[in-house]
C-alpha cells in the first residue's frame, strides 16, 4: 500500500524559496501534450473526402463540441472559445484515460493540474465577461440584488474554482485509490480490469465532459 503516499518530486532552491516539482505530473502532462500534437498532425496530414481514421475521430470531436459551444454562446463568440473548449476536453480525456496503461499515472490525480485548469477557466470567463459587457456593467453584477450581497457573490465566484477542480481531482484520485485497495484485496485477480474500465474509462469520460461543460457554462454566464 506504500504506492499511495509515494510521490516523485524534484526539489530546487531558488533565491531563498524551496520549490518542489511533482515529477510524475510534469512528465505525464508533457507526454499527453506530445500525444495530442501527434494526433493533430496525423489528423490533418492527408485530409480528404475519404478520411483517414484520425480525421474521423477529430471530426467527431470538432462537430460535437462545435454544436455544444454554439448552443451555449452565440455564433461569433463560439468561434473564439470553441478551440479552448474542444482542446480542454481532449486533454482531460487523455489525462483520465492514460491511467489504464501500466506505469502511467493520470496528471489529474494531482490537485495542481486540476486547480490550474480551474483557475484558467475562471480567468478566461471573467475576461470574457469584462470584454463583452464593459467593466462597469461587469462590476455592477456583484452588487445584485442588493448592495451588501457583494461579499457573498465574490465568495460564490471563488467557490466555483474550488468545486470544479476538487470534483475532477477527487473522482480520479478516489478511483485510483479504490483500484489499488481492491487489487490488493483480491491479489490482482479477475476484478481489476473491470474496475479500470469503470473508474478509468467511464468516470474519466464523464468527468472530463463535466469539467468542459462547466467551464463553458461559466463563460456563458459571464457574457450573458
Amino acid at each position, binding site marked *: 500500500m506504500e504506492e499511495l503516499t509515494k510521490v516523485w518530486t524534484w526539489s530546487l532552491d531558488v533565491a531563498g524559496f524551496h520549490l518542489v516539482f511533482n515529477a510524475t505530473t510534469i512528465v505525464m502532462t508533457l507526454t499527453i501534450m506530445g500525444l495530442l500534437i501527434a494526433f493533430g498532425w496525423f489528423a490533418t496530414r492527408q485530409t480528404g473526402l475519404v478520411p483517414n481514421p484520425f480525421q474521423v475521430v477529430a471530426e467527431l470531436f470538432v462537430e460535437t463540441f462545435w454544436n455544444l459551444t454554439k448552443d451555449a454562446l452565440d455564433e461569433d463568440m463560439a468561434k473564439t472559445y470553441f478551440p479552448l473548449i474542444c482542446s480542454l476536453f481532449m486533454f482531460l480525456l487523455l489525462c483520465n484515460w492514460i491511467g489504464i496503461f501500466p506505469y502511467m499515472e493520470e496528471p489529474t490525480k494531482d490537485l495542481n493540474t486540476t486547480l490550474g485548469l480551474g483557475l484558467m477557466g475562471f480567468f478566461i470567463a471573467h475576461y470574457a465577461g469584462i470584454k463583452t459587457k464593459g467593466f462597469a456593467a461587469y462590476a455592477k453584477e456583484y452588487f445584485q440584488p442588493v448592495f451588501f450581497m457583494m461579499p457573498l457573490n465574490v465568495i460564490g465566484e471563488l467557490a466555483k474554482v474550488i468545486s470544479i477542480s476538487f470534483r475532477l*481531482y477527487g473522482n480520479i484520485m*478516489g478511483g485510483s485509490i479504490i483500484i489499488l485497495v481492491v487489487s490488493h484485496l483480491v491479489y490482482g485477480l479477475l476484478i481489476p480490469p473491470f474496475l479500470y474500465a469503470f473508474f478509468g474509462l467511464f468516470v474519466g469520460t464523464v468527468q472530463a*465532459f463535466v469539467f468542459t461543460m462547466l467551464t463553458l457554462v461559466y463563460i456563458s454566464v459571464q457574457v450573458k
Partner: protein
Amino acid sequence: MEFSGADLIRAAALLGAGLAMGLGAIGPGVGEGYAAGKACEAIGRRPEEAGLLTRTMLVGQAVSESTGIYSLVVALLLMFVVQ
C-alpha cells in the same frame, strides 16, 4: 497500556475519516438515485429521447456527486495528512 497524544490524534483522524465518508455518501446516494428514477420515468414517457436524457442524467449526477467527492477528499486528508 499507555496512550500518547499522537495516538489519540491518529485514532480520531481515522474515525473522522470513516464518519466523513459514510455520512457524506448519504446525500449524493439519495440525489443520484432520485435523478436516475426521474430519468427512467422520462424515458418511459418518451423512449425516442433516451440518448439525450441519459447524457443529461449522467452530467447532472456527476455534478450532484461533488458533495460526496468533497467528503472523500476530506477523508483522504484525514487519513494521509493528519499523522
